[in-house]
């Protein structure tokens, strides 16, 4: 089957602004593809190119519609194709201010389809119903309609000649969510009934994921990730997609929003190599020096030298037994888990379920009986050799009891500087500056007597923040936190979790949060693993595990979690 639309290596530049930098896509008959991306990513340029509004020499490459290159056909032919074969509803399309909306919708019907004035007017009324527009509004002038109504009128116009391909640029902008959703569902249904293909341009990745079969994500005029909609939006592979999904407020996630670090690229000076590398937390030198290619990875196409988000930590089949008074206690029975770049994984379970044992094995403080823990490609082990010691630095454990974790013989400054002292390649001056910054970032005083204070002079909350600060001082890529907020008041706990979230945004820090408090865990983590008697009894997205737990263990933990009962109780 030949595809309806086949875009090959489309490049568009306006002077020194490169709007599209080699975009290829294809669309079959009746298919629905969504092009997502932030403003300035090149969506509108793509729509304009499809409408034939951008042509060589600004554009290069091919846009094949039924095998015919839109970039190279004559303007007469383009006229003929427009509206009847490909209809593009641009975001900025302007109505004629002196004609009624109905007349403007009827115009192509008269001129192109050869309908009589009466027939055209009748047809326009039907189209208005199709796009959920009150037919009475057709007699009004454009300025008498609201933005949302104009949007729908434009859509009616696009559908008027029953084109094979409808391109909608930000179709729901200006509509309230309910109307927008109803409209798009309706359009989607029409597309299925009448068999036209839909190309949706939107900045809202999550919203279009619902409608489209496939998603294509643009950034700085390049495709970052393309593939099945539920896959791309549900399990993002590219760091950009991941960050975008995390920045999106959705009901299906209980987690706090995370912004993307840095700023969108200036189209006049797109970064070299991978355009996303300045904002990417897993970028290496190669990302700056070499342009990645769009390659197949994890059942979709990803533009990344590493095939998408790196796997920070993977533990496979970890088993551990202890002998207690003669008989063996199996603390962990084949636990496996994976933590990706910037991801937060919660481990919950009742006391004695093996959580802390797992934490110690993950961080290389305890050797598993069988199984392996791999961090960024190197095995984590309890060995004393230099290489394993340096690997251990990258995965820090924040222990449950800060009194135990912090030596009673050292002051705050010495405690927090310890990782730097061990590393031994920074001067005292550098350490002092770093120390002050670090202490401030966790909300501790950064000067005066506090620096010399010993653990017995500090509160539990302060100690936990000192413990966090020194773990961060080691510049880890992954943090395993065992009940890190157990000593904190709610406000202090919230503050500490915000510090952790900032680190995740800035450094792509992976986080394994161990707790029995599912209410805290679900605010912070992407996935939750439920542990019971050393076995993983449930694993899934944080919102699912916390709202509809399947295992009895998780159900019990959810039932025990604190809930504020308001509203319903008050009104009954």
């Amino acid at each position, binding site marked *: 089957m030949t595809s309806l639309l086949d875009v090959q290596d489309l490049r568009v530049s306006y002077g020194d602004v490169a709007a599209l930098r080699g975009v290829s896509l294809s669309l079959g008959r009746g298919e629905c593809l969504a092009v997502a991306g932030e403003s300035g990513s090149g969506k509108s340029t793509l729509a304009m190119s499809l409408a034939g509004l951008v042509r060589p020499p600004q554009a290069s490459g091919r846009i094949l519609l039924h095998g015919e290159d839109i970039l190279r056909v004559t303007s007469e032919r383009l006229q003929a194709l427009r509206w009847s074969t490909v209809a593009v509803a641009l975001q900025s399309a302007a109505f004629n201010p002196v004609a009624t909306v109905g007349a403007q919708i009827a115009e192509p019907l008269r001129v192109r389809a050869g309908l009589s004035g009466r027939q055209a007017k009748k047809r326009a009324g039907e189209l208005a119903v199709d796009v959920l527009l009150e037919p009475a509004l057709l007699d009004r002038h454009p300025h008498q309609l609201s933005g949302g109504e104009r949007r729908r009128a434009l859509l009616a116009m696009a559908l008027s000649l029953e084109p094979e391909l409808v391109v909608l640029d930000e179709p729901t902008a200006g509509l309230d969510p309910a109307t927008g959703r109803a409209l798009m569902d309706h359009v989607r249904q029409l597309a299925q009934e009448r068999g036209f293909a839909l190309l949706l341009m939107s900045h809202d990745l999550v919203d279009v994921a619902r409608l489209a079969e496939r998603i294509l994500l643009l950034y700085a005029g390049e495709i970052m990730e393309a593939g099945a909609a539920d896959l791309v939006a549900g399990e993002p592979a590219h760091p950009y997609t991941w960050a975008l999904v995390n920045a999106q407020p959705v009901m299906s996630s209980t987690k706090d929003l995370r912004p993307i670090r840095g700023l969108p690229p200036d189209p006049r000076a797109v970064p070299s190599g991978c355009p996303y590398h300045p904002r990417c937390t897993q970028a290496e030198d190669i990302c700056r020096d070499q342009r990645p290619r769009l390659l197949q990875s994890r059942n979709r196409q990803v533009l990344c030298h590493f095939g998408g988000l790196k796997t920070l930590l993977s533990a496979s089949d970890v088993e551990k037994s202890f002998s207690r008074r003669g008989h063996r206690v199996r603390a962990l029975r084949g636990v496996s888990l994976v933590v990706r770049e910037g991801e937060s994984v919660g481990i919950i379970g009742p006391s004695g379920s093996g959580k802390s044992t797992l934490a110690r094995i993950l961080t290389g*403080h305890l050797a598993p009986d069988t199984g392996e823990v791999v961090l960024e490609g190197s095995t984590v082990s309890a060995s004393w050799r230099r290489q394993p010691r340096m690997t251990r630095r990258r995965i820090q454990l924040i222990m449950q009891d800060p009194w135990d974790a912090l030596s009673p013989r050292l002051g705050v400054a010495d405690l927090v500087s310890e990782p730097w002292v061990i590393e031994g390649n920074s001067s005292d001056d550098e350490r002092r500056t770093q120390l002050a910054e670090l202490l401030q970032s966790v909300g501790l005083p950064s000067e005066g007597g506090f620096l010399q204070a010993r653990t017995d002079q500090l509160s539990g909350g302060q100690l936990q923040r000192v413990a966090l600060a020194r773990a961060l001082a080691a510049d880890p890529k992954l943090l395993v936190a065992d009940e890190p907020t157990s000593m904190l008041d709610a406000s202090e706990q919230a503050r500490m979790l915000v510090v952790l979230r900032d680190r995740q945004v800035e450094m792509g820090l992976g986080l394994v949060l161990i707790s029995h408090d599912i209410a805290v865990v679900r605010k912070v983590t992407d996935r939750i693993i439920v542990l019971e008697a050393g076995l993983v009894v449930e694993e899934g997205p944080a919102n699912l595990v916390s709202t509809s737990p399947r295992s009895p263990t998780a159900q019990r933990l959810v039932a025990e979690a604190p809930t504020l009962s308001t509203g319903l109780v008050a009104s009954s």
Partner: protein
Amino acid sequence: MDLATQPRVLMAAERQSRASPMLIGGGLIIVVLVTVAVLAPWLAPYDPRDPLSGAPLERPSAAHLLGTNDSGQDIASQLIWGSRTSLLIAVEAATAVVIVGGLIGMVTGLVGGWVDSVMMRLVDVVLALPGLPTILLLAALLGPGQHTVVAVLGLFGWPMLARIVRSQTLTLRQRGFVVSARGFGGAPLYLVRRHLVPALGPALVTGFVSVAGVAILVEAGLAFLGLADPTVVSWGAVLNRALSYPGLYYSQLWTWWVLPAGLAITFAVMGFTFVGVSLEPSFNPRAEASR
């Protein structure tokens, strides 16, 4: 979790040293001993080796507080100078034992694995050797000399301390601050220096004091048996000389020739033992290593 609620203040109170009479007494003895040793050149009326300090076998008098020996050397001066020998050997031997035994104990306890197994078997072997006979044999084989005594004591003294230090290190290495430092990439010697030595300080001091006491006794014993360098002035050498004098017990000669030297040894050993024993509870694993 219980650790969190446990009042930490109690532990601080427990750490306050209890100045027992034993500690004060032992400490006083050591202070006197050190003072005498340091001030020996000014305190001693005669050169201890000078046979012409007086006539042979003089009775105690104002000129010779403890009389003279069979070649006319001043016994009081010999005892005063002898304290130097005893203390010096005690300090050297104790230092050697604390460094060797402490280091081996800490590193084996920390690293564990085959290093630990091998070293602990070695400890068993050395501890299984019959102490005094082996020391005598070695002293005889290595020839007389102060360094022989230090070497012999170092060789036999470390296993006991290593064993004590190792068992406490095994507890310490489970402690969060040691685990954390390990997590920051700390090498064994860093952990020893930064965390273990300060935490094991009391144990090491007690070990030092105990070994010092034993060293004084062993040195005196070897000298008494004639296995020490005869040219060195020491308490043991005084006894050796006295006891080899045929007519010692026919007169009251022994009361100023043998008794003061014996008492000096007894008091010195007692002083170190008292201090060692009274320090011990303060580093009792139950009270201290858990903090």
